């Protein structure tokens, strides 16, 4: 009796339904796994295709058991949990009042990371990559999270930023600090130009068209070789200087190197650290800008449009202008990030701007919780570091990625941190006064 109460029994109807669901899923998994995992092309083209039945069996069994477990979990655990607040939400509610402090502490931690004893070149480099994605996530958050425009081609603006930065540097001989804002402006311009014809579309349609635009930009970059260097791209992009101090071992005549100025021995890691702080500053700029603009009329208009376009129009908001401003500003930050990416790598080519990048950035925004700035940090850490940790089983990286996505969508469909802070409050006024009896 006691046992039955502790673990409520599952009725046979539920069990049958769960089995049916699992069987269907297993069937689909079989069809997918047979060609994808079961067959392997031989290294020597003369040999015949290798058949790996065990791979198929494992895949089908995993999907069957996973689906069964999920269905049973839903039937048994979920109903009882519907009454109580889930654990993670309870934990979040607990730390919510401290979020500002946590954010500041986190930024400080990130800021002193390069000075830590364990921070070698690889760690700092990885940190910079995470920061790029955080910045891109925050930029896309304006478009997807605030304005609710599902943009699957965000990488296009990243590419426009990287290429326009590079071309400005090479052809006009501008320095980093002059080319950076121009790269952002170019990307924003592209955002507005591409946005204009597509913003009448909604939801899925907008997603498909932006996806197409993203690919178009990449293909143009490949084919316009006279300007972009085709698929080889452009190399030897100079590193930016710190107020005129270069990061080379032997500076060109008339220039001063960083290590000379400070009288320290040359180390390659100085450049890495400098770039790390640069992207940190750019990311923080994006954050501060987003937080500020959210509280302005235009930011509120983005959210209003996301919530209900018809009502927004009835209040006098011009949907085209509101959407274009979100598209343009989101693109601008992608442009800044692109410029940084170009200068950090020293070379660019179209293969850095494929659809998978757009997908990862979007995944960061969605996983983190649409519109949540902290969520983006968490998701970027997860999505960039997880593959890094799982490097040893590189073959399963995508599997891990997909699994994490499914898990979040099942358990937290609104994202990891879905808390939304009001952009304005009456605060004390409303708390002090009770409703008139």
């Amino acid at each position, binding site marked *: 009796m006691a046992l039955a109460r502790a673990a409520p029994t599952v009725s046979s109807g539920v069990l049958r339904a769960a089995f049916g669901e699992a069987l269907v899923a297993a069937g689909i998994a079989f069809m997918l796994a047979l060609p994808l995992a079961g067959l392997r092309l031989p290294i020597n083209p003369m040999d015949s295709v290798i058949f790996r039945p065990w791979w198929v069996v494992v895949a089908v069994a995993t999907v069957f058991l996973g689906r069964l477990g999920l269905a049973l979990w839903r039937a048994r655990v979920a109903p009882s949990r519907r009454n109580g607040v889930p654990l993670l939400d309870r934990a979040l509610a607990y730390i919510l009042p401290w979020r500002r402090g946590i954010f500041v502490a986190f930024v400080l931690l990130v800021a002193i990371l390069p000075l830590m004893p364990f921070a070698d070149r690889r760690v700092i480099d990885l940190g910079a990559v995470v920061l790029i994605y955080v910045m891109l996530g925050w930029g896309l958050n304006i478009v997807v999270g605030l304005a609710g425009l599902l943009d699957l081609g965000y990488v296009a603006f990243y590419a426009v930023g990287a290429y326009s930065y590079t071309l400005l540097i090479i052809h006009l001989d501008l320095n980093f600090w002059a080319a950076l804002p121009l790269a952002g402006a170019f990307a924003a311009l592209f955002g507005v130009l591409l946005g204009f014809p597509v913003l009448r579309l909604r939801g899925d349609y907008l997603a498909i068209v932006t996806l197409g635009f993203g690919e178009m930009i990449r293909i143009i970059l490949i084919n316009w070789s006279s300007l972009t260097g085709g698929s080889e791209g452009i190399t030897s992009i100079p590193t930016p200087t710190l107020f005129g101090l270069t990061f080379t071992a032997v500076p060109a005549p008339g220039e001063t190197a960083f290590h000379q100025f400070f009288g320290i021995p040359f180390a390659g890691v100085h450049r890495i650290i400098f770039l790390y702080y640069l992207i940190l500053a750019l990311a923080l700029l994006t954050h501060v800008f987003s937080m500020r603009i959210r509280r302005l009329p235009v930011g509120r208009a983005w959210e209003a449009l996301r919530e209900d376009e018809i009502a927004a129009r009835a209040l*006098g908001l011009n949907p085209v202008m509101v959407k274009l401003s979100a598209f343009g500003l989101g693109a601008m930050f992608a442009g800044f990030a692109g410029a940084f990416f170009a200068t950090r790598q020293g070379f660019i080519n179209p293969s850095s701007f494929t659809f998978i990048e757009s997908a990862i950035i979007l995944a960061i925004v969605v996983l983190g919780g649409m519109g949540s700035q902290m969520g983006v940090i968490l998701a970027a850490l997860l999505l960039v570091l997880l593959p890094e940790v799982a490097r040893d089983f590189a073959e399963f990286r995508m599997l891990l990625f997909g699994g994490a996505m499914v898990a979040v969508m099942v358990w937290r469909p609104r994202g990891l941190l879905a808390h939304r802070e009001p952009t304005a409050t009456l605060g004390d006024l*409303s708390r002090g006064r009770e409703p008139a009896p």
Partner: protein
Amino acid sequence: MTVAVADVPAVPPDLLTVAHLSMRFGGLLAVDDLSFVARAGQITALIGPNGAGKTTVFNCITGFYRPTAGHIALERGDRSFDLDQLSGHRIARDAGVARTFQNIRLFPRMTVLENLLVAQHAKLMRASAFSLAGLLGLKGFREAEARAMSLAEDWLTRLGLVHVADRECGTLAYGIQRKIEIARAMCTEPCLLCLDEPAAGLNPRETAELSRLITSIRGEFGIGVLLIEHDMGLVMGISDRIVVLDHGACIAEGKPAEIRNNPAVIRAYLGEEDPRAGPGSTDAPGAGDGA
């Protein structure tokens, strides 16, 4: 003669003029050659059985549908607007027509206060110099924002809703959401307020409150109110004029007392076969005579 003019009860100027309006959806003529006027400082009710085309008229006035034929003109101060030519957001922003929806359309994940601030978008946008002054936090913008907040607060105080100002709209009770939608429309500082079944889903006490709210809006702001409503008690009690629609066409127009006993109206509501039936249902114009 000149003395006589002063004696005539002042007829307010025509605010909205709908002339020969028609709206066709494929084979269905939802609005059929409809003409009426709405005056400033008056409540003009638009009634009729379900599917008569009332909401469609609203959608034409507020620019969601482009009429198949006819004209809609609005006089605001000394400016006049052809609403049938204007896009929806300009009708709200420039012509000053605000509306509520039959199915409440608040921004559910935004707070009540935020909803009321979005309604003041146009003037805040100007004050923020299209975000530049806002980003820099200039004084002019901060003052405009404070004014917008206090307008929102005034409306919440008037409705007794200050305590929910910072709650998400989607979490509030239905009756409260209805009131907030009206407050939001009023925050656009309109010259014509269009209410689409504001009493739907309200209990009698809330309906009485609503009726006081609408009459106070008419009296205090002197704006025109266009009211679609099925609650005949409310309509007969507060309307200055009533336009009755059936199958898209106007079948009667006049003061409440005239409409109440109009045989064509009773027929439209109660069906052809029983023209002399007593006004028993709440939907029928005769009901709710108390006012």
